[in-house]
């Protein structure tokens, strides 16, 4: 009895320790960005100061620099626009491709799927050279449209592979049933497979969007003008001048860009994890 209670308390404590350690670890970058955003540069650079608190009163000067003297809002808008377009293109290509590979190509589907995924592993640092020719040929250099063309080259393979996993988990009999019930294969795909794999599709959307926001090599090599920059390149390029780091503004830029994505992730967390097909089969 005594030992049992001790054991319960012990496991409670252990659980909380793990939770707290991870929470602190994961929240710390956000805290650091937040505090640095509002810290005076003098406060930041004085090594005797406690770095975790405000030693001098907070300031808005970094935000003023970010919004007043760089095209930060324009970069956010560019990135969001490219993100939405690339997500759309990715879904249009990857959904039917993944479905066809899982259901219609028989035993070749899986190897081809893996083959497609392998192209995702070719590093952009190699690919940007031939792709720059493509971009030049299409006359898209120095516009956001260059990356709109290039990004699907890695988002589509990854998404196809991801979606194949989701489609495979849908029992085949469900589609058979839908076709007997009066849908064509395309109808069954749109009205049955897509709604059932909603969690997979959402995962693809968020993954694709994240890949677009964090991509660096293509955005750096294909686009130069400040007004056409993507967030990932604009921020380090224009807020690091020579060896001068505008830490406050850098952190502000990162914080503003990452919070919406973090919220989005948390909002759909259940959907990612949800065993969505539970109850479909006995």
């Amino acid at each position, binding site marked *: 009895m005594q030992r049992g209670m001790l054991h319960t308390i012990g496991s409670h404590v252990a659980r909380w320790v793990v939770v707290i350690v991870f929470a602190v670890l994961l929240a710390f970058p956000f805290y650091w960005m937040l505090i640095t955003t509002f810290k005076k540069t003098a406060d930041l650079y004085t090594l005797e100061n406690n770095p975790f608190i405000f030693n001098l009163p907070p300031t808005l000067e970094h935000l003023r620099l970010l919004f007043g003297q760089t095209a930060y809002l324009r970069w956010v808008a560019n990135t969001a626009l490219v993100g939405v377009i690339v997500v759309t293109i990715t879904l249009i290509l990857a959904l039917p491709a993944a479905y066809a590979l899982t259901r219609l190509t028989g035993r070749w589907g899986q190897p081809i799927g893996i083959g497609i995924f392998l192209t995702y592993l070719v590093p952009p640092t190699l690919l940007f050279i031939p792709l720059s020719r493509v971009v030049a040929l299409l006359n898209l250099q120095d516009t956001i449209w260059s990356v709109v063309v290039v990004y699907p080259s890695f988002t589509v393979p990854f998404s196809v592979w991801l979606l194949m996993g989701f489609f495979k988990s849908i029992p085949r009999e469900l589609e*058979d049933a839908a076709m*007997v019930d009066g849908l064509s294969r395309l109808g069954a795909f749109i009205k049955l497979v897509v709604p059932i794999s909603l969690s997979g599709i959402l995962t693809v959307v968020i993954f694709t969007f994240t890949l677009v926001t964090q991509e660096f090599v293509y955005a750096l090599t294909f686009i130069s003008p400040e007004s056409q920059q993507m967030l990932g390149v604009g921020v380090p390029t224009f807020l690091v001048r020579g060896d001068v780091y505008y830490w406050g503004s850098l952190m502000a830029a990162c914080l503003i860009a990452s919070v919406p994505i973090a919220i989005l992730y948390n909002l759909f967390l259940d959907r990612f994890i949800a065993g969505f097909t539970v*109850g479909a089969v006995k």
Partner: protein
Amino acid sequence: MAVVETRALTKVFKEGEVGAVNDVNLQTREGEFLVFLGPSGSGKTTLLRMIAGLEQPTRGEILIGGSVVNHLTPRERRIAMVFQSYALYPHLSVYKNIAFPLKAQGVKKELHRQKVEWAAELLGIERLLDRKPRQLSGGERQRVALARAIVREPTVFLLDEPLSNLDAKLRASAREELELFHKRIGTTTIYVTHDQVEAMAMGDRVMVLHQGYVRQIGTPTEVYDHPSDTFVATFLGSPPMNLLENGEAIVGFRPEHLQPVELVPQAATTFRLRVKNKEYLGAEWILYGIVSGGKFDGRELISRLGSAASHQTDQTYDFGVGEQDLHFFDRQTEKRTGAKVLAWR
């Protein structure tokens, strides 16, 4: 309602290999409950899927209601199918599951509620309409699947092992429910199973399949009492029929016909059996005996006895079989033949 017919229907999955379904000719009767019975891999599900239009036949024709439907998609065949897994749509409520075929086939929206309620009432699931499939028990899921199948008033019902995933107790009641359901709606039904008890209990006729070939088609009495070959003879009945090679013939007799000799006054032949093992099944005993002496020395025979039997293991008893209970098969073809006079000693 309609009649389903197949003509020389064949399905070969991989060229050069043995077909999954070979030259199947069958014709259902109006409103009949036809059972496809066979072990796994016998081609019964493939045959059903071809009738449904989910699988393209390699050769042969399928007719529903008198016209060839080979080129028609599943939805154009006006059939309904209940799957082994029930295949309920997990993201839709029971109501929407049942209404799904109506919606898919463009039935006017005003009629949906009325039809769904009719089907739900028929199966006694009115109170489940707002639930999701995952909140239902196995039996309830089966009823929802049936309601979804019946709602569009199909010409033919196809059922693919719908009871195989239920537990034993539920299976018996679900079976009875299916029988009553068929009586009430009277639609031609094809039912696939590997369970001979289901087949015998439910089928108006039973079609026995083995390795893609039809071995026999007939009423449960016909296939049990007059099996067309040794496969059917041993596949139906549990424990299976005893078979003994005797000259040019194979002779078979069911365990329930191998009885203590005093109960078989007109025995065609008798065996002296040493009881190797016995199983008590409540209502009956199953005796496993080894023939001792004579032409069949050492062969194992199975006898099924009433619960009052008191045979002891390792003791020897005399058993006999009546003339009328013997089945004769050709030794080469294993097909049923007429009665023969044979030497038993």
